[in-house]
């Protein structure tokens, strides 16, 4: 029998140590097999998709949609399809809703998914005590009844976007029996859903490992294992994909995107997503209409996209992106320096007598945000607007926005993954919304009647009219629709998602 001496034991240990340090790297560079590794740009703070700040983070929905199913599913082009609900609708009097629940679905622990889970999830979402940030939608439903596979509920008022919200933030079905058994903390430690992937291992700030759900109602996923590596630093994400340590990554600088996609063995896709860059205007600042319009006309958005974003961006003049239902291509403001100068002159201002103001912006939150604002300030200066740049953080922006204390002009972005006009123009421009910085009766009069409009054609036409009016009034300055860059190994095929959620189910072997 081999009895190693102490020296031999140490030597064997050291040998094993060195071998293991070198060994795993060979695996990391292997071609894509049954494991898909995604270098992800944000951390996953919590598993419950219905509460806390992560519940309203659009990027994290990629992970939530892997583990859980939404009431209603959404295709990559933002159109809707059956999820855990197979059919849904409003009663004829628009006072209640009905939902038919998918049959034959099981939770990750093997227990059956039922209509009770749907009723409980909606009821819980509407309960203010749970802290659901979209409680203002879910709280309008009450008196849930379950009969076979059908769930019904009363609605406080008709909301044409209600079912769209069921495919959006916090619109997830959670397991009633399991959640009640393990509680909120137990659920965070061992979450289960009905989604295509099951949680296998989670290390906060490091990685999440998922295993394919073999019994998934939508068919077995393409990869046996999916690893989300939480790599929040963009340079590190570039290194992850370039070194072959990860198979897919996203949200990297456009310069790097262009360089990487040209490299052998890598491919890329860049798609406009449901996220726009815009300049909020605070009506309390009482900026003259001519100055507001001049500020819009003075911005050469095409040049900004071309020179700062290497062409990755879509200039827009309304809060609707082309993929949204109420997008109206005829609404044009356009770059016109002469017109801007004339408007400024009419307001009594010009390069010799500038209109002094403040423009707030983030720095480093979105691609070239600060540089973009610097360019805009330069363009404004030419027509007689002298803006002082003030950099703020995300938290500060939200504090100012919800307390209606943003600077006269404030740059930020606005996501709208369901593409409904109420979740773009509606909440961004209606005075009752905590996120609106333009609170005036004339715009309210355009948007107000649309909240409960049952005639969909009339509602969409109403929002188009509101957008036209807003553009004519210069109540907001939409700048561009962002483009999301994704780089991946050439042996993969990635279907880009307009919502911006890079779901593993959208990645296949080429």
């Amino acid at each position, binding site marked *: 029998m081999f009895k190693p001496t102490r020296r031999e034991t140490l030597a064997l240990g050291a040998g*094993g*140590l060195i*071998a*293991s*340090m*070198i060994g795993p*790297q060979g695996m*990391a*560079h292997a071609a894509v097999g049954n*494991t898909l590794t995604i270098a992800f740009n944000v951390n996953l*703070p*919590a598993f*419950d998709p219905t*509460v*806390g*700040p992560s519940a*309203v983070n659009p990027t994290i929905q990629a992970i939530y949609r892997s583990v859980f199913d939404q009431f209603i599913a959404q295709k990559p082009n933002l159109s809707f399809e059956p999820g855990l609900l197979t059919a849904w609708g409003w009663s004829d009097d628009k006072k209640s809703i009905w939902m038919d629940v998918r049959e034959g679905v099981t939770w990750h622990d093997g227990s059956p998914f039922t209509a009770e889970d749907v009723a409980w999830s909606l009821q819980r979402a509407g309960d*203010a005590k749970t*802290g659901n*940030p979209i*409680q*203002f*939608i879910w709280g309008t439903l009450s008196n849930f009844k379950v009969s076979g596979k059908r769930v019904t509920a009363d609605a406080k008022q008709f909301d044409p976007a209600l079912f769209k919200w069921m495919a959006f933030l916090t619109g997830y079905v959670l397991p009633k029996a399991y959640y009640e058994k393990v509680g*909120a*903390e137990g659920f*965070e430690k061992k979450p289960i859903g009905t989604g295509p992937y099951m949680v296998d*291992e989670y*290390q*906060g*700030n*490091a*990685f999440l*490992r998922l295993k394919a759900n073999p019994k998934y109602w939508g068919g077995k996923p393409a990869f046996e294992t999916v*690893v989300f*590596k*939480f*790599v*929040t*630093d963009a*340079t*590190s994400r570039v*290194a*992850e994909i*370039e*070194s*072959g*340590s990860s198979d897919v990554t996203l949200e990297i600088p456009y310069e790097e995107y262009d360089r990487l996609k040209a490299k052998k063995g890598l491919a890329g896709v860049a798609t406009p997503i449901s996220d726009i860059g815009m300049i909020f205007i605070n009506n309390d600042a009482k900026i003259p209409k001519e100055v507001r319009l001049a500020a819009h006309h003075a911005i050469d958005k095409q040049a900004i996209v071309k020179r700062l974003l290497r062409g990755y961006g879509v200039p827009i003049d309304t809060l609707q992106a082309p993929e949204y239902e109420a997008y109206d291509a005829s609404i044009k403001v356009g770059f016109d320096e002469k017109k801007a100068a004339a408007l400024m002159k009419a307001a009594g201002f010009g390069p010799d007598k500038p209109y002094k103001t403040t423009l707030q912006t983030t720095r480093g939150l979105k691609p070239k945000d600060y540089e973009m604002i610097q360019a805009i300030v330069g363009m404004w200066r030419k027509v007689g607007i002298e803006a002082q740049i003030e950099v703020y*953080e*995300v*938290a500060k922006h*939200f*504090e100012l926005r*919800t*307390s209606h204390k943003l600077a006269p002009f404030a740059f930020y972005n606005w996501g709208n993954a369901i593409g409904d006009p109420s*979740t773009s123009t*509606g*909440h*961004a421009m209606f005075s009752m*919304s905590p*996120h609106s910085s333009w609170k005036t009766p004339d715009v309210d009069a355009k948007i107000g009647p649309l909240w409960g409009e049952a005639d969909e054609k009339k509602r969409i036409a109403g929002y188009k009219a509101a957008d036209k009016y807003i553009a004519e009034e210069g109540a907001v300055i939409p700048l561009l629709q962002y483009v999301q860059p994704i780089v991946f190994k050439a042996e993969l095929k990635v279907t880009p998602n307009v919502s911006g959620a890079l779901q593993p189910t959208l990645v296949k072997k080429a």
Partner: protein
Amino acid sequence: MIASVLVKRAGMAIVTLFGVAVVVFLLLRVAPGDPIAMMIGAGASASDIADLRARYGLDQPLLVQFGIWLAGVLRGDFGVSISLRRDVLELLAERLPATLELAGLACTFAVVIGGAVAVLGTLLRRRKGEAVLDGVNGLLLAVPDFVWALAFVLLLGVLWPVLPLSGRMDPSVGVPFVTRFYLTESVLTGRFVIAGDIIAHMVMPVLALALPLAAVIARILKDGLSEAMVQDYVLLARVKGMSELRLVVGEALRNAVGPTLALTGVQFTFLIGGTVIVERIFAFPGIGSMAIDAVINRDLPLIQGLVLVFGALFILVNLAVDLAVVALNPRLRHG
């Protein structure tokens, strides 16, 4: 003597930590950024916002909030993280070991390398080699840890990809650990393959953190050694025929190490601060990377817990260094 130093410093530590708690609590409340504003949906009403504020206890007067928090801390209850929705103390206990292993390894590496460079520099004094060594040391001093981190990412992660770029261990490793000290535990339990994987993940962050500290140690220790090398006891030993290496290591080092040790303690606290950025770059799951997320999300209970832990670490490290200096110096030891 050591006992009296210990008692005095422990008392000061409590006062300092209380001061840190008060300052952090107040600063966080007056600093811009509202955690509730960041999590409300687009159509939330004023009452929805008030409900959320009440849920996280942010509707109470400042003094009441502080009293509740302090009473909780004294009971060992640091509150619940707003963004991670978990017990703050549990989260800290989960993440702190990773940072301690990282910082501990970086500090050990810095001491070894810095010490070796100082000894070598002393042996090479007044020769060409000394200038070269000083030049390299100056470079290491001038480059901050995060620049080293990015340089290593490009060099050892991309151009010559021999080391893993992110995380604490390979995601495919599924070995259960009893403690959160993964490296220590895997070495102690003889799981060398796992230990190797963990070390491989730590090489780049450790180097990034250690190199600037090693340069500081090398410079201070070399100055101390140079001073000691002209003392009478060293001259006597030289006259007795002792070799240069033995003179430096056996005689001068013992007397030169005191100031270096004190400085290393102070620098170690900076090194822990440096983990915030380095952990971010390497996606290393310690308290540093958690601190950034906590600040971005204005997760007040978590930031408060993190600052207290950082504060306690600084105090403990400095206390340990002070005790070590006293223990090593007979003049201080005997009053």
